[in-house]
């Protein structure tokens, strides 16, 4: 069950972002590799990276769905921008994505997944922000209950939590 919400607050940032805003707060997500709309401020970051702080992600169109997962006993509600919207606003162009978590866990997923399965970069769990110890602050998650083929180890492993960077290849 996929529930798509268009957030009124995010009206400014809706649509393709020609030039990405500079993040005002702490960077929570960096899209690296083959991205065109770069906005890296700090020299510490690699030159071609699109950085997002939480408000920037909030301004993108938001999607909500509830799904059962291997990590929680019950179905939980996840809310956040679609992966493909984030990639679009970063001007990402590639075939593969490498999602990397805070603990350096990484997993590769085809960029095609963003179109086919509507995965979401969730920032709210049951409408509440996620702490790091609650697999936050960002959780790349597939709507497992929407399609039976998603209920397999392949897609469970592609769901990276404590997501920090996405490298476009």
């Amino acid at each position, binding site marked *: 069950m996929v529930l798509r919400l268009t957030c009124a607050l995010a009206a400014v940032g809706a649509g393709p972002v020609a030039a990405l805003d500079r993040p005002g707060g702490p960077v929570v997500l960096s899209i690296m590799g083959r991205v065109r709309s770069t906005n890296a401020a700090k020299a510490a970051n690699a030159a071609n990276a699109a950085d997002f702080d939480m408000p920037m992600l909030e301004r993108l169109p938001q999607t909500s769905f509830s799904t059962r997962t291997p990590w929680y*006993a019950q179905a939980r509600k996840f809310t956040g921008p679609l992966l493909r919207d984030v990639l679009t606003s970063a001007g990402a162009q590639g075939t593969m994505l490498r999602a990397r978590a805070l603990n350096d866990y990484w997993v590769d997923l085809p960029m095609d997944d963003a179109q086919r399965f509507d995965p979401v970069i969730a920032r709210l769990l049951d409408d509440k922000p996620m702490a*790091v110890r609650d697999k936050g602050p960002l959780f790349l998650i597939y709507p497992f209950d929407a399609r039976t083929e998603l209920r*397999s*180890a392949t897609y469970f492993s592609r769901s990276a939590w*404590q997501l920090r960077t996405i490298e476009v290849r």
Partner: protein
Amino acid sequence: MAVADDRSPLARLPAGGARGGPWRGSWLGALALLLTLGLLVAAGVQIRQFALLTQAVRGGDDYVVLTIYQAEAEHLRLSEQWSRALSAGEPIDRATLQLRYDVWVSRVGLLTEGGTRRLIDSRPGWIQTVQQMEAFVARADRWLGEPAGARLDLAALRDLQPGLLALGPPIHGLSLAAAHDVSEQFAERNRVVRRHNQIGIALTILLAGMTLAFAAIVFGQMRQLHARRQTLEDLAASLYDARREAEIASQAKSAFLANMSHEIRTPFHGLLGMLSLLRETSLAPRQLDYLRTATESADHLLAILNDILDISQLESGRMVLAPVPIDLREMLRTVDALMRPQATAKSLALHVDAEPQVPEWLVADPTRVKQVLFNLLSNAIKFSDRGAVVLDVRVREHGEGRRALGFIVTDTGIGMDEATLARLFRRFSQGDETRSRRFGGAGLGLEISRNLARLMGGDISVRSEPGHGSSFSFQMPIHELPVPPVPAGGAAPTAGPLPTRLRVLVAEDHPVNRQYMAALLGTLAHDAWFASDGHEAVQAVRDRRFDVVLMDMHMPQLDGLGATRAIRALPDPAAATVPIVALTADAFPETRERCLLTGMNDFLTKPVSPEQLATALRRLFGPPGSAAAAAPQSAAAPPLHDGLIDPVALQRTLTAVPRAQLAAMVHSYLQQGVETVQHLRAAVRDGRPLDLRVHAHATRGAALNLGLPALAATAEALHEGAAHLPAHEIARLVQRFEQQLGATGVAAHEHGLSIDVEAAATSEGR
């Protein structure tokens, strides 16, 4: 046709058909049930396998191993960061330490959540470790929790470090235990899957076997059905063939019988005739005795021949009854008179009696009724040696006003037992073999009698006991005549020769029959001429005047019918109207019909007795002593020239039409009359009564208009009689019309209606 032949299709029918069907059916049912059960079990195994896999995926047992491993890894990274913070000279990197701590806590949290929690709860050793970690987190959260209660300083770090490090070995143990546990589960699952596979394979082999057996039984069943159907079709085909053959054989038999009757009767005709002529000659007593024996044998043979003819007619349905009004008591007297000599010869009493209720007159075929009675009575006489034979005639009420006549023939003879009675009405059966030998006869009589009785709408029944005589009852429905019919105007011809010496032409191809006819006609004092085929007969009639032609039906070249047609078409009126009597061995009614339609005047069945011939000639040439009757043409005809022209009508017409014109019209009519005569002759010759009527009608109308009543009357007679008058009568009327045409011409002249050729031409040209 043998039915119980071993080679007959009936014998080839599978005998076990009725028994094998249900037996096979129950086997099929059991197999189908087993197959279904086997498939259900296979489905059950597969469902279990599916559930197992689903559980494995959902439970994510291997995922637990990864989670514990990551918890261990994060614990190590946290421990390292912790040590780095405690080492001198470096400020505490609070953010990094906080991140490492949070990440590790999140891993610990994973162990207590969801499917992982369930797994860990099931193992007491694991719970302890998890509780240990949770205890540490609870302690550390005072400085590192959210929100942090106390400020994180070196002292706190140092205070907490031993607890953190102490977690190392249990977490490692947990990791190893989980790995072992999961691999065991994996092995177990593999084992289950393998067992399921084995069951599946066994089931598949079993199902395949059962399917094969099922298919084999079905195939066998189908083959059996096919064989049965084939057999039935063969049977039907052979039955059809047999029926057709039987029908063809039956038709051939009928044709054979008809032919044989003719073939036998033709020479027989000669034989009987010669015997009767022989009796007229002077013979020694011994010769007379031989002759009597020969005549008796011949009579017997003729009776059998007649029986066979009757049978063939009854079987082919060509037997037609000819019901006429009959005087029943008169008929009974005849029967009595004819049977009495036989009874007297065996010293038997014969009583013929009719109840008073029995009607005087009724409608029936006298020949056939007498035939049945003769048969029953002669049987009764034949099988009785003493006592009496009684014929009782009674009326039986059938309800609803229907009445039946019962002729009951009772004898005091040897009687019959049940078995004999059962065989009685069958062909060629005569009671029993011994009786047959003792009493002789063809054994057809009772069958014919019963069939005749049934044809009349009645039947014959019998009651008998051995030694106590028999009682045959012949019933027929009564078709009563309320009023006795008026006796026919012309009295029945009385016996005795005709006073006139007739000139008779006999057309007959068989020399013996010619000799016989010559003798016969000599006995009757008539003059005989002979022709040996149809052409000769026609030529003879042309050359000479005859009073009558006796015409055999079957002759080479031109048969009797063809010759008759040719004679009727002759231009000479006297020759064309000569009476023709058919002679034939065919006793079939349709033959008689054909003869009369063709223009013959009478019909005699061979063998011809002198009495029959004399009777036929008397029928043709009127009552004895009447000279006028002997001349056929003048029979009851009005004077030829009376009323040729009606003077009253003539005067009336002359008031409207000028005399010359009327004369021309009469002349023209008379001229056309010659053509009309030709048309009429052609119609008579070709047997087209309709044409005859049309021409006669047209000419009659014209004759009435012109006031020529005699011609009109003759034309009307032609018109009326076209369909039913015999051909020679019609030929006579045509001849009369022709004569009247000439006479009318003379009469017209006398009445001042003469005409010269020019005047006619002028009147027509105007």
